[in-house]
């Protein structure tokens, strides 16, 4: 009996979905298919065994995609879903490839022969040789002292309390769960506090056929609840969204919205996060429950993110309905 083949057939599929600009409808189709088949989305390339690219081909993303692919351990497969109607076919084909022992053995042994075991990468820009490994500075001056792996030491700078602390340059996106398509926020971190943020948009075509208002609100809520660490309510929002897109107006919607409004914990956690003239993350979420969406221009991001802790920053981004139009905004 071929043990590897036997184990491979039982491997649960862990998709990492990367949305290209303009790929919202494709992403929705992929998410729906994954959910119905009991696939649980991966949080990082290390966890994933299926890389799904949703949306039209964007050359600006390809370097990031290659980096992500190279940091995924075998067994692994790749699927591109350009159009929502391709989802079922592309994902089924990828699943077959994932369970094919010969294919996967070839992939794995090739990696070993070329001396390139999957290396950490994933969330970081191609300019960094390795991703999660972001202990180095590529903005400031280079010190003579180098770390193992020829990574320069982190630079230091004054922090908000007047101390001199290490600075870390960590790009957020474009391959990150629940993250707007094509968005990269280049951050300078001290500890996990963002000192400086600068926004870059990848790809030129950021237009999408707009979703119906209710589905759009539910999609926004799915993203925010997921980042807020409430997967059960997020997946319920996702189910409601899919039902709405299929043409229904589910009765469950009222109960779900009531539970969100009732949650004192959510109120406590989201109030005061990402406050703008139009309210904070909590008021925006409550607004979505009433199908009220206030778009925010992407150039408002740096000011909202600077001084925020990483977890808060993620909530800020997830709580905004970003208009991804302006390219290259400095904060």
């Amino acid at each position, binding site marked *: 009996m071929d043990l590897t083949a036997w184990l491979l057939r039982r491997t*649960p599929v862990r998709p990492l979905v990367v949305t290209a600009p303009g790929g919202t409808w494709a992403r929705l189709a992929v998410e729906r298919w994954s959910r119905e*088949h009991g696939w649980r989305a991966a949080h990082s390339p290390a966890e994933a065994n299926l890389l799904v690219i949703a949306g039209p081909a964007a050359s600006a993303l390809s370097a990031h995609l290659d980096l992500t692919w190279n940091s995924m351990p075998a067994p692994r497969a790749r699927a591109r879903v350009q159009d929502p109607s391709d989802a079922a076919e592309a994902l089924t084909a990828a699943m077959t490839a994932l369970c094919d022992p010969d294919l996967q053995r070839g992939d794995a042994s090739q990696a070993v022969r070329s001396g390139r075991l999957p290396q950490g990468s994933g969330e970081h820009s191609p300019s960094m040789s390795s991703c999660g490994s972001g202990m180095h500075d590529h903005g400031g001056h280079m010190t003579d002292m180098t770390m193992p792996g020829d990574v320069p030491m982190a630079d230091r700078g004054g922090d908000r309390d007047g101390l001199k602390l290490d600075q870390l340059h960590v790009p957020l996106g474009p391959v990150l769960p629940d993250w707007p398509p094509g968005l990269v926020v280049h951050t300078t971190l001290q500890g996990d506090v963002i000192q400086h943020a600068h926004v870059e948009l990848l790809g030129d075509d950021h237009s999408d056929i707009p979703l119906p208002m209710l589905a759009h609100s539910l999609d926004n809520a799915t993203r925010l609840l997921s980042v*807020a660490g*409430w997967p059960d309510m997020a997946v319920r929002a996702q189910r409601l969204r899919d039902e709405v897109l299929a043409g229904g107006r589910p009765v469950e919607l009222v109960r779900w919205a009531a539970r969100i409004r009732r949650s004192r914990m959510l109120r406590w956690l989201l109030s005061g996060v990402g406050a703008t003239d139009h309210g904070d993350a909590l008021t925006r979420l409550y607004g979505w429950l009433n199908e009220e969406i206030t778009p925010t221009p992407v150039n408002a991001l740096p000011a909202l993110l600077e001084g925020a802790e990483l977890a808060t920053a993620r909530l800020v981004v997830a709580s905004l309905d970003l208009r991804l139009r302006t390219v290259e905004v400095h904060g």
Partner: protein
Amino acid sequence: MVETSQWGALVLPALLLSFAVAASSFNAVLSARAAGARADLAHPVREFAGLLVQQRRRTLAADSLLWRAAGITLLLAAVLASLVTPLGHWAVSDLSIGVVWFNAMEVVAWAAVWLAGWGSNSAFGLVGGYRFVAQGLAYELPHMFALITAATAAGSLRVADIVAAQRDLWFVVWMPVAFAVYLLSVLAMAFFGPFDQPVGREIAGGVLAELSGVDRLVFLTGRWLLLVSGAAMAVPLFLGGGAGPVLPDWMWSLVKTAGVLAALVWFGRRLPTVRMERFTEIAWIVLIPLTLVQALVVAIVVMP
């Protein structure tokens, strides 16, 4: 009261592992129900299979020794903590300082989780590791006061004496605050929801961000075992140990442990993730005074 048996050391890991698999199955069923997918009881087993065939990874300039050691440390800490947990009237070891031993082993988890974050030389991993340290600062003191309350009532740090002191009245009845705080801190210790910030999805899995294959398997197993060992200890500390009608005492220990574990898994999914920047204040301003008052009340009641 408690018979010790070295042979139990062979049974203990298997028993803990069975509970971990059952809890993980229950968790998977709850996930599937929320997602409207078919319930898959065998999900943890398939996950196990998947991680066995997955390649290990390495990251640039990783501290490989400490990184790989982290998962094994977590696993060992969880098993060692349970050495003093009685199953009915058997325990692997009946130390005179059982409660302290249990607590000391749990604290080893701090090192393990932080090392997993540090060792990978990854920004998200490191952030996750430090989040766990911050979380530890928030939950550990209330946790210790909850443990001490049970020990105070029995006048002993020996787990067998604590069980014996509950012959007439279970501790959960007259020290509910300590019990509730204990359960909360078990969730925090195993970084299970709503205290799962160290492995948050928003930082790509935090300390888990770079782990794959067998390394991930060991670490995740350690995490489930930690939750199980915390749940199992709640039984002798607050729920009368193996006491109960009809069934033999070891059976009662198992039933009660399963109940506590299921409640923890269910409760952990009901709330959004608590951020430490907000929770630490609650822990220090509300939970510590509450547990102190509870300990004071208990101390006055048992005063000779």
